[in-house]
């Protein structure tokens, strides 16, 4: 049909009609290199986490305690956070004690790397196409830059600074370039006149009532928000995908049972479910993430199920089936990737909800008071509104813009990824 090929013997094996199918059917395939690296990285991570759990023991301790049962006077779930043993990494100047939340966070980042960054890098053409679609929304691009900054600062900087502590030499200092009357009390580092105090570069965003630096509090708050948002959302996605896809794929009574359960879970207003569980478990940050992650997936699983049902009706699904693909192959290669558009969008829109819930809980004083979250700081500033506006305002602005940014991105992603919005 096409121009004659001079080197027929070389091209021979590359013509479809020359494939010896009897020979092909005898052989079995090998695993690609990249998959091996991926599996290896997860295995390494698992080993490290196991090592930490055993050496520092909080996890094992907790498990033992729980299994042996019975309320004990010293019983505390908080034990998970505070490692009892030596720090995990100790290289002289760099000491990092990896907590349970940290382990989860690293795992989340690894999953994001392997299942978002790597596929995007491997399909540059598709990535460019999505980027072109996404770029049309300028607000989303700005939001993306903002979130990347928040993410990097929040993840890296806390490794090098310590949690801000009370400093009674610097109470209620205003942010730099602003002044405040000292009549209301508080100390002052730079006195302008007798009763007017000016903020300093030492505490660029001012300090709280007990003299903690707000900039540092905000940076630690970034970490908390990112951890809550990303870890809990990833847990939600994983559970929702598993439940939604099984319901769609198995159908029948499995579907009925799972979706009825989801109905019930969603009837319980999520905020109050979290509230009740938080009350009953008196959670650490780790447990709060667990509660959010284990009970927040109902809505997404419904989306996954309906999307998956739609995908199985698509012709490309039938095409793969008629080519002889096994059900598992089809689900893995066609259903999950195509549902992932909706999942990513739903997840991006779910993250702000979780961040907001954590902030609200911290504001209400229902979370670990030792963790400097934005909500805690807002709550602390509430009592000094008249004298120190900045304590409640500044972390609130960060919270607001972070939620806004996620919403903008979610909306842009929906436009870029959702075929329904043609």
């Amino acid at each position, binding site marked *: 049909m096409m121009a004659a090929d001079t080197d027929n013997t070389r091209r021979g094996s590359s013509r479809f009609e020359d494939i010896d199918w009897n020979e092909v059917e005898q052989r079995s395939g090998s695993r690609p290199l990249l998959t091996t690296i991926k599996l290896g990285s997860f295995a390494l991570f698992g080993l490290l986490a196991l090592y930490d759990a055993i050496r520092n023991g909080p996890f094992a301790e907790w498990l033992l305690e729980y299994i042996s049962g019975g309320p004990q006077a010293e019983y505390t779930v908080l034990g998970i956070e505070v490692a009892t043993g030596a720090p995990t990494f100790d290289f002289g100047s760099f000491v990092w004690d990896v907590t349970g939340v940290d382990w989860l966070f690293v795992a989340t980042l690894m999953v994001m790397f392997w299942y978002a960054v790597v596929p995007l890098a491997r399909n540059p053409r598709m990535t460019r196409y999505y980027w072109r679609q996404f770029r049309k929304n300028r607000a989303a691009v700005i939001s993306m830059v903002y979130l990347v900054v928040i993410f990097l600062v929040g993840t890296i900087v806390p490794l090098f600074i310590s949690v801000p502590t009370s400093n009674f030499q610097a109470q209620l200092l205003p942010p730099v370039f602003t002044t405040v009357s000292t009549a209301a009390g508080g100390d002052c580092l730079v006195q302008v006149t007798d009763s007017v105090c000016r903020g300093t570069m030492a505490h660029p965003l001012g300090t709280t009532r007990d003299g903690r630096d707000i900039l540092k509090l905000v940076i630690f708050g970034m970490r908390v928000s990112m951890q809550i948002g990303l870890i809990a959302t990833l847990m939600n996605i994983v559970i929702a995908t598993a439940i939604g896809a099984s319901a769609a794929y198995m159908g029948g009574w499995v579907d009925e049972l799972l979706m009825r359960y989801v109905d019930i879970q969603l009837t319980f*207003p*999520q*905020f109050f479910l979290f*509230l*009740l569980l938080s009350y009953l478990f008196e959670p650490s940050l780790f447990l709060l993430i667990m509660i959010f992650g284990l009970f927040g997936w109902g809505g997404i699983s419904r989306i996954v199920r309906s999307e998956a049902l739609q995908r199985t009706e698509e012709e490309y699904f039938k095409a793969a089936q008629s080519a002889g693909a096994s059900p598992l192959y089809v689900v893995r290669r066609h259903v999950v990737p195509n549902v992932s558009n909706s999942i990513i969008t739903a997840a991006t829109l779910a993250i702000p909800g979780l961040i907001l819930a954590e902030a*609200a809980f911290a504001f*209400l004083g229902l979370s670990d008071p030792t963790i400097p979250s934005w909500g805690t700081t807002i709550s602390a500033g509430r009592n000094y509104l008249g004298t120190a506006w900045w304590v409640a305002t500044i972390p*609130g602005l960060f919270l*607001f813009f972070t939620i806004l940014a996620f919403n903008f991105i979610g909306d842009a992603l929906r436009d870029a990824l959702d075929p329904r919005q043609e």
Partner: protein
Amino acid sequence: MRWYVIRRVAWAAVVAFVILTITFLFLEITPDQQVAQLQFQAAQSGGDPEAALDAYEQRRGLNQPLWDRYTEYVTNYVQGNWGWSDTRSEPVLDAIVASLPYSIMYSAPSIVISTVVGMGIGLYSALNQYTKTDYAATFVAFFGISIPNFWFGIMLLLIFGETLGWFPIIFQTSIADTQTFSLANLRQLFLPIVVLSTGAIAGNMRYARAEALEYVRAEFVKTARAKGATGWRMLSRHILRPTLVPLSTLLVGDLLGLLLASSLLVEVVFGIPGVGRLSYDAIINQDTDLVLGTVFIPVFISVVGNLLQDIAYTVLDPRISYGDR
């Protein structure tokens, strides 16, 4: 149709029952904070912690078999015996009934305002897609859904209460009790209503816009235009009416939860002694019965809301067959 409604009501009962059961299980597996407190007190006052524990379990019937406790728990709730609030020294239900009016005082206007205004803006925006008004409305909606309501409340208090002094900072129960329908009461409820409505308006608007857009582009709307329908008739009959079908589920499903959660925070911020505040105080004071009671109120509202939504759906959409589900 009647069978469908009966089935839905039965299902709502099942849901309520399952939620009660799950809550019971959670109570069972978590440590009882009051026990720890009692033991601590006993030890401090020189008593025997074990004896205190026994006495406590005796009093609360915790030494009975699991199954008996479970049946008693469920029957108590069904019969309206929701337990005793230690901190308020009255039955839980009485405490809730006493605080409910304060919650309704600001949430009822908020629901009405947010539904009417939100849907109105959403529809207008959909009809005028790609215009400046549409962009502005969309931006406002983003603002509304993104702003943390408790912080928003604080900021409003800071600006309009603290700085400008337009609205009172402290909620006065006496005004609410004696002059419920007075300007003074409206003045102290104004900011809470604004805070609660902002998020709900934005949510309503986004949903209404998205759904209406589907119908603005629908073929049957084109048919209606070709018939000569325009203006209000077009909007109300041909776009709003079909939009109500999907919207009815979204309004209840998503916004009810949002509204309930927001109200708790709003009450805490503005110091309104409603159910949310009651819940918050109960949590802080570790009054478990009262916590459960105040959490079950939104759950109950949600169960009923879902039931009404399903029935509304079948009334609104002639295509649904009652044979399903």
